[in-house]
């Protein structure tokens, strides 16, 4: 343990240098703000600030980009809770219970608790990064295509169970999400699928355009009239009202711990990360929680996934820094910074550049602390935003959505994509489908196909290779159990309701 302590001290010395502190603050501050604004995600923020990183030391550059990265995750849930529009796609889960909490006048508490949960999750993720990097990196190597496939099946089954109501509807959304994810060039042959000749679709439907259309635009259409009718004056924004009740605290504690562990695990696997972690955490809490209030403003549905999301943000650096394997486009940019500064990313970074590695890790913790301090006073400010009449808000939200998508892709065709996904999203919503499972299906679908086909390709078409390892057996077994349980419960609830309901 002595070495970890030494390393932490070394890291703190680097992280607390005035320049690094300044860049850290700049990063988390910009990250939070840009995270709150729907449409502008971490990718835009980082791409825009990327040029700055040429002129500063590599540590400062990474501290800045890292700060923006996990800062947006803190901010992303804010608009999800207040407006039911996720600021970033990965905060889609925060809509499920965060928005109902806000409608009940508990927005302050929800925001306060997400900040606490984010800090908690971030800290656990950093501890995992400090203590278990080599171990986690080694276990990431054990995940081959068959294991990834099984894990993704599990993630998608879990996602279809998180929506309230019929599990079949959840599965339908996941499957539609997968289909939308398959649009574009096939990884194996380059065959263009479901593009109908549109160049804009060659690369597939873009995630931000989809998330903004299906959540943002459809939410605006839905709320324009209904929000006005709702009473928005009952929002108490005093500090006391912001504090969670004792029972809320008690209910949040275990979800936060479980969420952090789930997040730390998924974050470290290249290609998965915060989005799937938050879904898994939500599904877990929904199974474990003995409350009927999920989907109607359960605090566990906010704190668990939020802790998972932020823990995953931190452990995502494990494969990036220790293996040189970036798990997401954002991580690839972070690797790009290393390359520009002449540091070859790969297994040698931790050994050759201890001050960079540990300085960065400790700066994450400093940054998380800053976010905690920065965000709690802001909660009052955000809640005040709810007092602005919705008819003044929605034109601005619409502008942020459209402009955000436009600046992310630098291509006005994506605005048309927002239009179509928005119309489709509203139709689904009208028909009683929830959009959250669709987003996860969209993200995991193409990866699932990739791993499905690679497993077959590598084994020469042998289906037993899907269950040849313990990891796959457990994942697929749990998936089957969840599916069965979910379908039985749907059936039972239906028959129970039909007895009680008016005829």
């Amino acid at each position, binding site marked *: 343990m002595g070495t970890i302590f030494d390393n932490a001290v070394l890291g703190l010395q680097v992280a607390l240098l005035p320049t690094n502190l300044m860049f850290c603050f700049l990063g988390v501050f910009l990250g939070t703000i840009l995270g709150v604004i729907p449409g502008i995600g971490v990718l835009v923020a980082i791409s825009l600030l990327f040029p700055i990183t040429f002129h500063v030391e590599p540590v400062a550059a990474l501290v800045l980009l890292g700060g923006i990265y996990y800062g947006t995750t803190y901010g992303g849930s804010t608009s999800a809770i207040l407006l039911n529009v996720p600021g970033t796609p990965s905060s889609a889960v925060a809509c499920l219970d965060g928005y109902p909490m806000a409608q009940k006048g508990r927005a302050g508490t929800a925001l306060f608790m997400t900040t606490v949960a984010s800090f908690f999750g971030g800290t656990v993720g950093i501890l995992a990064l400090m203590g278990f990097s080599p171990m986690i990196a080694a276990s990431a190597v054990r995940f081959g295509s068959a294991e990834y496939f099984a894990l993704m099946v599990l993630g998608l089954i879990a996602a279809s169970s998180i929506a309230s109501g019929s599990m079949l509807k959840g599965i339908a959304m996941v499957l539609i999400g997968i289909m939308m994810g398959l649009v574009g060039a096939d990884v194996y042959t*380059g065959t263009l699928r479901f593009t109908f000749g549109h160049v804009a679709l060659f690369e597939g439907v873009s995630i931000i355009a989809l998330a903004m259309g299906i959540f943002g635009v459809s939410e605006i259409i839905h709320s324009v009239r209904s929000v006005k009718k709702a009473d928005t004056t009952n929002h108490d924004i005093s500090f006391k009202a912001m504090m969670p009740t004792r029972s809320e605290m008690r209910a949040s504690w275990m979800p936060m711990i479980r969420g952090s562990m789930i997040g730390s695990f998924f974050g470290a696997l290249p290609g998965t990360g915060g989005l799937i972690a938050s879904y898994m955490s939500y599904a877990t809490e929904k199974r474990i929680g003995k409350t009927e209030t999920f989907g109607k403003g359960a605090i566990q549905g906010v704190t668990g996934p939020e802790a998972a999301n932020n823990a995953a943000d931190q452990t995502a650096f494990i494969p990036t820094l220790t293996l*040189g*394997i970036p798990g997401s486009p954002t991580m690839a940019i972070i690797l*790009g910074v290393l390359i520009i500064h002449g540091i*070859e990313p790969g*297994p040698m970074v931790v050994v050759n550049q201890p001050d960079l590695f540990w300085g960065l890790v400790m700066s994450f913790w400093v940054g998380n602390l800053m976010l905690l301090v920065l965000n709690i006073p802001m909660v009052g400010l955000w809640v005040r935003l709810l007092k602005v009449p919705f008819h003044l808000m929605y034109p601005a939200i619409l502008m942020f959505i459209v402009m955000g998508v436009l600046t992310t892709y630098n291509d006005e065709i994506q605005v048309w994509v927002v239009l179509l996904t928005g119309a489709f999203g509203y139709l689904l919503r009208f028909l009683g489908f929830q959009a959250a499972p669709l987003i996860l299906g969209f993200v995991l679908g193409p990866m699932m196909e990739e791993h499905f086909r690679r497993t077959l*390709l590598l084994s020469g078409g042998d289906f037993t290779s899907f269950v040849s390892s313990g990891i796959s057996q457990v994942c697929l077994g749990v998936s089957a159990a969840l599916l069965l349980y979910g379908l039985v419960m749907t059936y039972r609830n239906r028959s129970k309701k039909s007895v009680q309901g008016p005829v």
Partner: protein
Amino acid sequence: MKVFIAALAVAFSASFALAADYPERTISIVVPYSAGGVTDAYARQMLPKLQERLGQTVIVENKPGSGSLVGAMDVARSEPDGYRILMTAYGVISNEVLMTNTPFELADLSPVYMLGRGSNMLMMRPDYPLDTIQEITDWAKAHPGEMKLASSGVGASPHIAAELWANRVGVDFLHIPYQGSAPSRLDVIAGRVDGMFDGVSAVSYVESGDVKAIAIASEERHPSLPDVPTFKESGIDFVFGTIFGFYVPVDTPQDVQDQIFAALADVARDPEIEKTLVRQGLDTTPRTQAEFQEIVANELAQLNELVKLGRLTPQ
């Protein structure tokens, strides 16, 4: 060559106005990949020196999508005035052959300046029983379609490298494409595939012993890997790597193209920039515009031959 002649023809007819004043406003360098990728990094690194040299603001615009198709198409359709310059890697060439069903032709672009050429090396999983390229070739010949070679994607330079090598020595292998080089490297390290062709940027994995390098497809050995022989030393005439280059719309007046060439050539020879490129394993031998155009034409011919032999399937 056709590209070159077309460029010349148009240049004569349209060169009167713009050339003398070029550049008089902001120039965009369009990178068809996301910010932070290697290509983007090179472009941005050249930015300050390029601004100094041209006396104008130069910005990098990222237009990622469909390999490099979206960005390439954007430049091909822009005004041919030298204010939108494409900087791209190999994809723009292989897309021309592999993605036939697109509203873009490489002939709409004129190659102007070649920044450098990477080199691919064959690396195998750490526990692979064979060590020399000769043994591996013999084994692959005896077991057609059994050697599993990963790549960073269909049509990406590692895939093309593998097919070119296989074609040259007359073997068949099982191609396992990935999305990007990172996940494919991971499966080589973990031993789920036998090996892959990869850029020299994978040197650190060789140094750490996570993979073993067999042979490198360059003219000379790489300074960081003095023990890894070239294919040529082993009697296989095989040199291949991605090409980083700058392209403008084909109708751009030739004297504007000349000015762009001169500016880029000056900046690329800046010691600091050249150092970075060499460290990344690029061959930065200076080449004229005509030489660059010939290289592109040769690549196309080579790719078309692979298609004819059925080793590559256009979509």
